[in-house]
């Protein structure tokens, strides 16, 4: 087999430098190294070690755009990219509004990364997972403990034929713990998760303990579906905010008319106390200095004073809308190119309430820990549906009185956020398993959340 080239970036620069006259392009090298310790039935069942790299080359020839990618980092593998991309571009429809590739405009300060995370060994990752299991079972001895620890680093280098060359690194450490007691009917569970860019701040032992202590001891009750005030704990709040990022701020949604905010930008849509930004540089998120087109990440207000700002844009969508990129370019290859630019490092402004205060303020309502299998029902109305999972509780007269059987919600995201009455003080970060996207949010209390059916557990 062919051997990886020692300097793939130089080889990509060669590929860009030898494009035919009049053809421009950009290229990416994306390296990653991950350790995943997936545990179930209270033991590590799927330990996964991965190191890899992908290179991609996008060309623009006579306004026609195409992309080729490979994980073959040999000279031949990288060398074949230009021919493949050019062959695709020759038959592509024209993209007359493509603004061209950006020129270098100064250096970009690095963002927070963690060398300890990058270096964390396989065995250390396994110890983190083991600590979560031990802590949970110390609290609930017969519990079934499941979850995962993901630790890794990714580096992204973008270069283009205008001379831009930028790099960034992202580190991430994530853990989730589910603790289930099976000796009740129905079984009950508790959940906790954490996401850090610095693995030394990730404490799976604490997460295991928290998840175990959230396992209810009171009998599970059934409640009628209907409208309830709801405290959305961080994982549930993050899910709603994540959907708003796609339904309201995706650049394709704006272009294609399905964005729920397309005709509402600049108008008040939520209470002024709810502030939302996207900030790839903030250590509150999982920082990444540039997007996948080399544009600098920066603080981008999404909702200020309750009013929605513009959508997230990349080079193509910005060109079509006559705007400039907002630094939200995804990898141009499939599936990201089709998904379109979206905010990936969203941060909700902190409020001043504790979870206990939110609960005390409710006469009758619910606390939702997290959601499951949430899907879009109607994009332009921001209606989504999904189930509650792993800890849904009934509140009466300001106190949690019982866990309840899980409920299905069918609810407008904007409606839920418009009904926010209290915003939590403590913010936590919820990231995806490889830190590609994160939402940092406090818990939220919304006054009117619609549950449409119930399940039996």
């Amino acid at each position, binding site marked *: 087999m062919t051997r990886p080239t020692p300097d793939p970036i130089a080889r990509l620069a060669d590929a860009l430098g030898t494009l035919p006259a009049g053809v421009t392009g950009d290229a990416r090298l994306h390296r990653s190294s991950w350790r995943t310790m997936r545990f179930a039935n209270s033991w590590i069942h799927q330990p996964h070690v991965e190191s890899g*790299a992908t290179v991609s080359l996008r060309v623009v020839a006579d306004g026609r755009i195409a992309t080729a990618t490979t994980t073959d980092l040999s000279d031949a593998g990288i060398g074949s990219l230009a021919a493949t991309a050019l062959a695709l571009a020759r038959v592509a429809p024209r993209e007359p509004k493509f603004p061209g590739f950006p020129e270098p405009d100064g250096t970009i300060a690095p963002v927070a990364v963690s060398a300890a995370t990058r270096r964390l060994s396989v065995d250390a990752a396994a110890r983190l997972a083991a600590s979560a299991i031990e802590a949970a079972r110390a609290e609930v001895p017969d519990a079934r403990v499941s979850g995962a620890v993901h630790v890794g680093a990714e580096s992204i280098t973008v270069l283009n034929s205008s001379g831009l060359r930028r790099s960034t690194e992202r580190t991430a450490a994530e853990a989730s713990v589910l603790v289930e007691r099976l000796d009740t009917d129905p079984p009950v569970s508790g959940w906790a998760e954490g996401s850090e860019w610095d693995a030394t701040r990730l404490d799976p032992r604490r997460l295991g303990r928290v998840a175990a202590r959230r396992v209810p001891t009171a009998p599970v009750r059934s409640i009628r579906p209907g409208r309830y005030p709801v405290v959305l704990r961080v994982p549930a709040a993050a899910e709603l905010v994540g959907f708003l990022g796609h339904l309201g701020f995706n650049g394709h949604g704006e272009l294609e008319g399905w964005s729920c905010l397309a005709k509402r930008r600049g108008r008040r849509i939520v209470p002024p106390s709810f502030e939302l930004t996207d900030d790839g540089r903030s250590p509150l998120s999982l920082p990444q200095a540039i997007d996948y087109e080399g544009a600098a990440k920066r603080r981008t207000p999404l909702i200020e004073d309750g009013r929605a700002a513009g959508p997230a844009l990349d080079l193509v969508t910005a060109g079509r809308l006559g705007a400039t990129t907002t630094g939200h370019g995804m990898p141009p290859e499939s599936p990201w190119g*089709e998904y379109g630019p979206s905010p990936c490092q969203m941060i909700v402004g902190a409020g001043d309430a504790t979870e206990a205060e939110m609960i005390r303020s409710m006469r009758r309502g619910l606390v939702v820990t997290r959601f499951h299998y949430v899907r879009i029902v109607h994009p332009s109305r921001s209606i989504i549906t999904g189930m509650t999972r792993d800890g849904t509780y009934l509140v009466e007269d300001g106190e949690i009185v019982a866990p309840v059987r899980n409920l299905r919600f*069918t609810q407008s995201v904007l409606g839920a956020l418009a009904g926010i009455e209290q915003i939590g003080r403590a913010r936590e970060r919820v990231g995806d*398993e490889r830190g590609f996207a994160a939402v940092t949010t406090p818990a939220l209390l919304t006054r009117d959340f619609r549950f449409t059916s119930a399940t039996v557990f």
Partner: protein
Amino acid sequence: MDDLLDAALDAALTPGTRAAEVRLVAPQRYEHLAVRNGEASALTASTRQALGIRVRRANAWGFATTADLTPAGARSAARDADRAARSAARTARAPIAVVDAHGPAHGRYATRLKRDPFAVDLAEKLAMLTAAERALHTGPEVKSGHASFHAWKEAKWFASSEGARYTSTIVQVGAGIDATAVANGEVQRRSGPTSFGGDFRQAGWEWIAALDLPSLAPTVGREAVALLRAPACPTGTLPIVLASDQLALQVHESVGHATELDRILAFEAGYAGTSFLTPEGRGTLRYGSPLMRIVADATEPGGLGTFGWDDEGVPAAKTTIVDRGLLAGFLTSRETAARLDLPRSGGTARAEGAHRMPLIRMTNVDLLPGGSSMDELLEGIADGVYFETNRSWSIDDKRLNFQFGTEIGRRIVRGELGPLVRNPIYAGMTPAFWASMDAVGDRSTYHLWGVPNCGKGQPSQVARVGHGAPAARFQNVRVRGG
């Protein structure tokens, strides 16, 4: 390739290692071409190469993957897999048992096709997509048209310390169109032949040509526009008929995932969830009406879940999952089969590629056709709703409470399909819903669909699976407009 497999196996068999499997995928090719509103939405060609090594020690698994396909790269990955297994063993609770692979796999599997999609001229593919996309624009309300084509080719070498060694080349294709119509604040999308990228098959370009998307497109565009003005779906408890494409997804979500034995045994509890089924339910649990017959068939010609051997070296099999309404079997791997003392694995352990660990995945999970024509399914329904082409889908983590929305609905009035209704949604609980199935469509209503985007696992994996389904009728279903 054999040298590389040998180097990896040699390096993986350290003292204490009970077994090792090596998968080498080189290349895994993917081509995605898409046109949106006359512009190139995605023109992507990608190749991936990877080597994956899974080792089994007495009480722990280990997996590592690399894209460095040299002997040094293979040895490094083997060391990582060994390290992963030794590290995982710190939490071990019991020895790992696996059932026999049913004889070491030997041989070669290859997709039967007439025209390699990667050899078809790009201009021909783009011309088809451009023509189809253009034909979607049947009126000014069609704000967005989209036509896409996907093709995958995976060349795989598999070897195990138990003596298995096979090669496999699988080619899969799919294409589809969708139109988004917008007017007066209403947005409606209509797809063809179905949503999520269209109609997929393990085949060559001949499958795409036969879809004839340019001819289908005007109907899709007109239906998108018509949906803008259609009345909302009625609300009530009604008889419904599910078209084949929607029933395929119903099978996927409420039978396919529910019968994955790793879910039932709680190995997916922390992420995808578990199942309402228990091992003890096999042979006794009533899943649905006696008309319900479901198989998992990895030998079905043309399915996205068709192959020669799975990623544990187990030969492709056909397993009965539901027999006349009774739970009859599960989707299994060698480890999960051993936990139930089953004689063999059903051969459903598959990975997205060599860069991922094999998990239990659906093959082609099919609802077998019954004896009713479409007219007979509609017959006797005084007032009901017909659902076609999935738009939204959600189900709880035990696969019980579900809610599905489709792109299009039609009133069924006095036994005949009536006018369109928009935003139709139906919901229910899995066993009660399947128990209400009182008529199953015949072969004329049956189609083998492909689901190209089934997600599972951490790190996440996307599987392409197949579902054959006829149309079918269900009674007393909760229906409403979204």
